[in-house]
């Protein structure tokens, strides 16, 4: 009898503990919403720097970028070697301008995935601005300490076929909901890229990542530090920025 009472108590306690844990852990969708609130913007303008470390060599690329929604973006490189090299994404179509050839070259969709100026990032990575919540089903996989910060681990699976990376794993800061780290998986399940937050800044009510590291895991000994400076969020950007005339000027 004594044994039975102990077991019942143990069950009750564990149920209580589980309930308490559930009460503390937000739902996966809620976590995604928090991440989206921090990271998805209407418009952004910034001065960027990419520090590319590839097989013991180091390259620094600087640029000025304007992004509107998820379909329009304009990038102009300012470092001496690539000065006046420009990328335009307009209504989902990508154009590239090289000052050497003085030509505008349309780039077909899949090249959005190719390395941007030899970095670990693709152009898509730099302009991707779609909400995660609308595209993925999320499930909490556990809790871990990441880079000294307690974090929720979320597994994302694409709701529809055709998602760029159909499976992702996210580490979200338990306290401030910073996206600390994510891993991107190809359709076959191979881990293709990983991103790590280095520093975020507060802009009004949101925390926005301004310094991060991206690793393209298919490239050996490679990583890119991506830094955003003088960030202006959600301010109107003139239509004239996202034009081929601006690309060729």
């Amino acid at each position: 009898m004594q044994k039975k009472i102990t077991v019942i108590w143990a069950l009750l306690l564990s149920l209580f503990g589980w309930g308490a844990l559930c009460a503390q852990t937000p739902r996966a969708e809620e976590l995604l919403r928090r991440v989206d609130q921090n990271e998805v913007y209407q418009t952004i303008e910034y001065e960027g720097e990419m520090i590319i470390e590839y097989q013991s060599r180091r390259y620094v690329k600087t640029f000025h970028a304007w992004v509107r929604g998820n379909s329009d973006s304009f990038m102009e490189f300012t470092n001496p070697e690539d000065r006046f090299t420009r990328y335009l994404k307009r209504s989902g179509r990508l154009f590239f301008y090289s000052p050497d050839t003085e030509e505008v070259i349309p780039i077909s969709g899949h090249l959005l995935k190719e390395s941007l100026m030899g970095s670990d990032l693709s152009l898509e990575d730099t302009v991707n601005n779609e909400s995660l919540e609308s595209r993925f089903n999320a499930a909490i996989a556990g809790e871990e300490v990441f880079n000294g910060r307690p974090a929720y681990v979320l597994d994302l699976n694409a709701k529809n076929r055709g998602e760029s990376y159909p499976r992702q794993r996210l580490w979200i800061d338990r306290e401030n909901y910073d996206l600390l780290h994510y891993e991107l998986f190809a359709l076959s399940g191979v881990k293709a890229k990983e991103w790590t937050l280095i520093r975020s800044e507060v802009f009004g009510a949101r925390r926005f990542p301004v310094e991060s590291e991206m690793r393209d895991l298919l490239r050996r000994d490679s990583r890119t530090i991506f830094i955003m400076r003088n960030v202006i969020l959600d301010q109107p950007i003139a239509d004239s920025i996202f034009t081929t005339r601006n690309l060729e000027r």
Partner: protein
Amino acid sequence: MNFASLFELKRMAFRSLARHKAKTILTCAAIMVSVAVYIFMDSWIAGMERESRRNIINYELGAAKLQTKMYFAKKDEMPAYETFQDWETYRDILDESGYHAAPRYVFSGTLYSATGSAPILFNAVDPTAEKRMMAYTGYVELGRFIREGEFAVALGAMTAEKLKAGIPTRPAAPELEEILASELLSAADGDFIRSCYEASETKAAGENLAEGGELRFILKRNLPTGDFDRLWGLMDAIGRNDVRISTVIDLKALPDSIRWDKWVGELWPELTGWEQALLGKLYELDEEEQLYFFTGGGEDEKAAALEAMIRAGFSGAIRHTNQVIDVKVVGMVNSPDPANNFNVGYLPLDILQDEAGMMLEGQVTELLIRDKKMGAADMTSPLENPKTIRAALERGLARRSQTLPSELDVFFWMDYMEDYLGYEAMESGSSRIFSYLLFFLAFFGISNTMLLAILERTKEIGMMRALGMTTGQLYFTFMIEAGLLGILGAALGVLLGCLINIPMVKYGIDFSGMLEELGGNIGYRVAGNFRGAWKLSTIIGSIPVAAVISSLMAFFPIRGAAKKEITSSLRFE
């Protein structure tokens, strides 16, 4: 002018040539060289063109392709989402009608090896059909061709070398050292690998590998087949052949929602009237969200709406999913067509059907077609006309109570090679212009020779005219003389040109080193050995053309002499 006088005038022309031997020999030599160069260049160009075209047909494309019209319209963009199903039926019908048919799914991607990466054009093929039809499959220099069901790739030999996959054929000392340093190799394996190479400078096997520097080693080509297999196995064991394909799966899909600005700016203006009506029916605007939502529709309506979006170039209808596929390099292709040897990979089609591959689910981008009677050295046959192939397909489908889908059509190999054919015309034109210039320079030499001959013989001409020679006879004599010079020079030129051409046609010149330096692309689809081709029309036509041009070149100097008063000619010093 009777026959006897004509004969006499011709004899005079011959005698004049014999009298001025030095001038005759020099002028003939100039014509000979120009005709020989022309024949040589013409043979070279004809050889390159013929071989290139033959290679394109037998090593790259087949004679024709069955493909969707939309793919063909956008072929420069390589729209891998423009696929079709039921290719097995078309293959069987073509087989019954006397054609080989080989399915392919073509896509681009990046290949990552342990040491680097390269952009590659991947052809996912049915290995059996491909071997039956495409000649490059017989040129797997090292390793073997792919087999059904294996996650494997046969790579262009130059790209495999660049990515340090497969057996290195010309490794630098550090590369060979790195291989030998692998912990997965035994001492005996190391000795075996060493014995397969010879140092490029000393040609001595077992050169001290530690010296490093620029020392290169050359794979011995006379090794027994078993040794090549063992060597390949060892490269496999140390992971040298493990590569990754990074690519994107392009999928056509009707979007669930479209942002208002995209709808208005990108999609709507590109649609025709009925397409606008259709999409207006299938999508509804949510003003609060500023989104057009898909509200539902029949399967036919959805398919038509999707096609309309694709035709309009609406990017939202194509989704791109990242894919990474691990494969093993099993062979290195080194065919006579450089297009197979650089940045090209061949994979088995059957491994790409599901999520581990490209989610093809039975789809292909093209069906390559070739007349069964044609061999690897042949051009196309009349049976390979797209209309004939299409008719054969339609007849076969009718027998099965089916019809050819309207989105499919048969296209001739030339339809895909506009760029190459443009290059060929440009190259051939510029080379011919060069030859013509040389040709005309030589004939201006004739004009000059005749001018001097006439000046030298001004008194003689005056005397003959005083004795009754008519202007016509004067023209005839000197034009015959010039024509004879042309015939003699051209005949010698044809002889010289043919002599030079014999080794050019039989053996050719090996430019493979230069081709490698140029990255494999010189425009012509010829790898390494450039051969000439006999062009009888040029050889036979050279002599009469040279005779006519030479005669015409003599016209103006004779006119000057004919215009001169007879008394002035007689007084000429």
